[in-house]
């Protein structure tokens, strides 16, 4: 089996893929990117914290121009003050997206490099979506 690495360092692979955030030790503000200090309270200690794999869509768009393929971008509220931006599959008509639409995380191979290493990315799909995940 090919070597797999996460496409971003806040995605944890394995049996139960999930996202992780840097949590400020002092105020628990969450960041996906590395920070020198907390933007909320200026503290400088962070710890890695696992995040929920299900959440609710709080914002969305369907990008039709400027992309190779149209895609749906969503902001998902994962609870505990953390939101994440990602693609959504299984809902190509944005007018379908209603308040409180629940989604769950899934992973897929986003690319392969010249040594055969696979980059695994994540996206979301509606809870109850039954499409078989092709790698």
């Amino acid at each position, binding site marked *: 089996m090919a070597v797999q*690495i*996460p*496409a*971003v*360092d*806040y995605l944890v692979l394995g049996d139960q893929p999930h996202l992780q955030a840097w949590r400020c030790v002092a105020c628990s*503000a*969450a*960041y*996906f*990117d*590395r*920070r020198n200090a907390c*933007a*909320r309270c200026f503290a400088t200690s962070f710890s890695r914290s696992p995040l929920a794999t299900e959440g609710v*869509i*709080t*914002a*969305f*768009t*369907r*990008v*039709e*121009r*400027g*992309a*190779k393929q149209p*895609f749906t*971008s*969503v*902001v998902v*509220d994962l609870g505990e*003050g*953390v*939101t*994440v*931006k*990602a*693609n959504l599959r299984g809902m190509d008509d*944005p*007018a379908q*997206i*209603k*308040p409180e639409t629940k989604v769950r995380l899934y992973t897929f191979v*986003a*690319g392969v*490099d*010249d*040594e055969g*290493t696979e*980059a695994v*990315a*994540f*996206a979301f799909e509606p809870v109850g979506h039954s499409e078989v995940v092709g790698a």
Partner: protein
Amino acid sequence: MSNNVWVIGTSMTRFGRFPEKDLMDLAVEATTGALKDADLDLAAVNILAMGNLYEATSHNGQRLQQAMGQTGIPVYNVVNACATGATAIRVAVMSILAGESDIGLAVGVEQMGKMGMLGGGKKRDEKKIFAPKGRRGGVVKAEGLFGTNLMPGVFAQAGTEYALTHGVTQTQFARVAHKNHLHSTLNPLAQYQKEFSMEEILGAEVISWPNTLPMCCPTGDGAAAVLLCSDAKLATLDPDVRRRAVKVSASVLTSDPYVDGGQVQADINTLTRNAADQAYAKAGIGPEDLSLVELHDCFATAELLHYDNLRLCEPGAAGQFIDSGAPYRDGRIPVNVSGGLLSKGHPLGATGVANVFEIVTHLRGEAGARQIEGAKVGLAHVIGLASACGVHILEKRAS
């Protein structure tokens, strides 16, 4: 020290695409117009603040001096995303309030051509080996894989966030574009002067849903300039210049405070609300007192949110506000009677100066066919992602 700052001259070029001109041709045209408007020449100016984005490392203030007159005054070249022009004005205002200058010149200029706001170039690596890069440890291009962070997508998502919370429809967003394109038909300085029907707007190519092509601002070229002065200086100027002077009742600039959700999707609301509230408090004026507003409608979705952010409507009621006709030019609070960014155009660095030009022109009663009759107080707002937000409140001089 001056207690007040006054606009005594202002001018803008037409916005559009001018490949035959260079950046300085545009800046000189606007600056010359503003000086002529105030019946002054460059020798009177003590400070120059120059705003531009795409050639920001080219010392454009000094280039402007070389093009039209070098007097040795301090030059501040500023860049602050789409709030660059407002930032230039703010620099000149602060200098006058501090007593360091008595006449300040703020210029905003941009030449974008047809480059598009979508961004993104293609790179070709010789051998592709995944290696984590940057503060997210990314190994592949993020745009389009982890949602969208390009401008059309960001402002579309800002709109749908409001829509999910307050029940706004795509038709209500589209009405903003209907209004602004309609308004632009009266503005000879607008890049486009074409009315669109609601059917044409809703049926046009989707750029980033819910925004279709006429719901997105064009790229373009243009410049605008504002001449500002102190109380003491104003008293020495020609009576006709004094009569036409417009008071800067508030000049405010904000950036993003920390908010939870703002870390992954730009929050265009909080800093705008903060800027508006500070400006209203400073001016001692409320939204109900405004005769007209020029706000940052880079996309139709953005304008609707700013009705709420600038307190023009009840909280959550921006959809009803546009449906009521209130922001149309014959409505309760006319918004973007210039045509707004959607139709007047958005040469980035010029925008924050051009919207002050628009307000001043109405307060002087000199806006021609698009004049809002009896205009006494106006508000100019810009926001640039990063983020920076500028709000200026301007008042007609008591006669």
